């Protein structure tokens, strides 16, 4: 039923001496949102450039909309792709409307979409001002509007929420959800995005050019076997005295419990009469991310020792 939008098979990319990407496999279906995470220089941007057809793979296969992105025939599918680069400052002397008009012409996007998009990203009031007077957040919004031109079927967004205030971030995620429900595939790329968890279907963690982990957040969480954090209030010291609970204690009133024993421990905690509050938190994306990065580092170190 669902159609494959992006397919990467054993993709390698190296510049002169640096291995930017090694043996990357990825399949992205229509309507899927992938979070691409990694430290600086992990290869996120390189991967995007490969998918966009700006650079050539050194080895392996890549296909976007069923075609090699560097192929002449893939030209037409570029109209269906939206891209927000990491650092972009648009033509300073042009106004927001003029910038979008230019890009809309290049993409053959309908003209009436420009006003619509400027309103959607909250730039309607500033649309006739020169872009050089825009704040960082406004520039980012203009970049997003640019990426949304022409109702793209594939969106690649590099650090999309940098510089956005919380409410703009919220609006951004709601547009992501909207595009997703209209069948667009999206790759969100970031160091770590606060609040991104609910909006992505799968996450891919890159580390030093290798795929450290890929899967749904639940899968990654299970595989990492990260403990659940439980914080209690009102028990005051009684935790210490319970031999079983004391084993999980990391701080006063704070337990780290394996996922499998979570329910049992909570039941046990509920038996304390004076408990007034309990906070249960599954491992966040950030924890998962840290875990896999550390994991990857260990394996690299082991490799170098051998």
């Amino acid at each position: 039923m669902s159609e494959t939008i992006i397919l990467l098979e054993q993709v390698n990319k190296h510049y002169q001496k640096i291995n930017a990407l090694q043996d990357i496999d990825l399949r992205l279906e229509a309507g899927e949102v992938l979070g691409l995470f990694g430290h600086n220089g992990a290869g996120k941007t390189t991967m995007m450039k490969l998918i966009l057809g700006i650079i050539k793979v050194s080895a392996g296969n890549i296909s976007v909309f069923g075609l090699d992105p560097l192929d002449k025939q893939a030209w037409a599918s570029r109209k269906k792709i939206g891209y927000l680069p990491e650092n972009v400052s648009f033509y300073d002397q042009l106004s927001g409307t003029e910038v979008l008009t230019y890009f809309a012409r290049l993409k053959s996007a309908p003209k009436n979409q420009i006003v619509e998009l400027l309103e959607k990203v909250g730039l309607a009031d500033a649309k006739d001002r020169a872009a050089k007077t825009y704040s960082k957040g406004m520039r980012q919004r203009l970049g997003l509007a640019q990426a949304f031109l022409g109702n793209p079927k594939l969106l690649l967004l590099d650090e999309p929420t940098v510089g956005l205030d919380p409410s703009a971030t919220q609006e951004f995620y709601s547009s992501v959800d909207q595009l997703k429900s209209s069948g667009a595939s999206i790759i969100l790329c970031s160091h770590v995005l606060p609040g991104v968890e609910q909006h992505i279907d799968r996450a891919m963690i890159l580390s030093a050019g290798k795929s450290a982990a890929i899967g749904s957040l639940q899968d990654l969480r299970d595989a990492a076997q990260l403990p659940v954090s439980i914080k209690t209030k009102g028990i005051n010291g009684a935790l210490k005295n319970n031999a079983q609970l004391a084993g999980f204690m990391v701080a006063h009133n704070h337990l780290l419990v394996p996922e499998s024993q979570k329910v049992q421990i909570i039941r046990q905690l509920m038996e304390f009469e004076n408990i007034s509050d309990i906070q249960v938190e599954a491992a966040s994306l950030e924890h998962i991310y840290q875990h896999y990065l550390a994991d990857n580092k260990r394996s690299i170190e082991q490799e170098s020792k051998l």
Partner: protein
Amino acid sequence: MTPILAVALKEFQDGIRNRWFISITLIFSLLSIGLSYYASAASGQIAPPSLSTTIASLSSLSVFIIPLIALLLCYDSFVGEQESGTLLLLLTYPISHGQLLLGKFLGMGSIITLATVLGFGSAALLLGFNSSFAAVLPAFSLFILTSILLGLTFVGFAFVISLSVSEKSKAAGLSLIVWLFFILVFDLVLLALLIGIENGVSQQGLVQLMMLNPADLFRLINLAALDTGDVNGVLAVAVNSSHSAMTLLLVMLGWVIAPLLAAMAVFSKKTI
């Protein structure tokens, strides 16, 4: 709208917006009108200057100014967009390297072309009213046509420079060196060859050497069309050669196309 036209339109509008167009037009018209009236003073006469004196003075001044303006207008055309990140973005759009290059050439070329026609054309009109159009028009048409070709050549040079470097400041420096080479150094070397080596360069050989420099070609074509009495220096030797103006114009056209091809080659190898 085709991508080429979209890019050309944007570049042209940019040129109008940042007042490049109006400035170039003003410079050219002031220069040509001024020289039409006062060029005679330089040659020590008080009478109104002859048409050939005017064109001779105009070409020796334009040969400095037109390349400089073209380089200034275009040196950051690619490296500027690379620095701000829009070049990377443009390359993800449905537009090929060639289309982008051609679009920019059309847009910026139109600015130079239009400014040349309006600027120098205004002087031609003034002169025509004061004397006769029959004499003024042919001389000025050739001058304007070659000015446009010279401008376009250096637009192409600016593109090659802009695509070869990754910093704006380097592009600016390199532009200055290119300008210095074609306008000053090349002629000095030619002179040195003529004087230093006896019978080293024949008249024919000299003209052929001058074809390697679009700025010299520009002077050659314009001065060859005049009464040779107003011409002196290295050029006086070359002017009496047998090449027709048509051949020289074609070589100049080649000088417009060659840098563009070079720019295309650099662009396709460029990593962003």
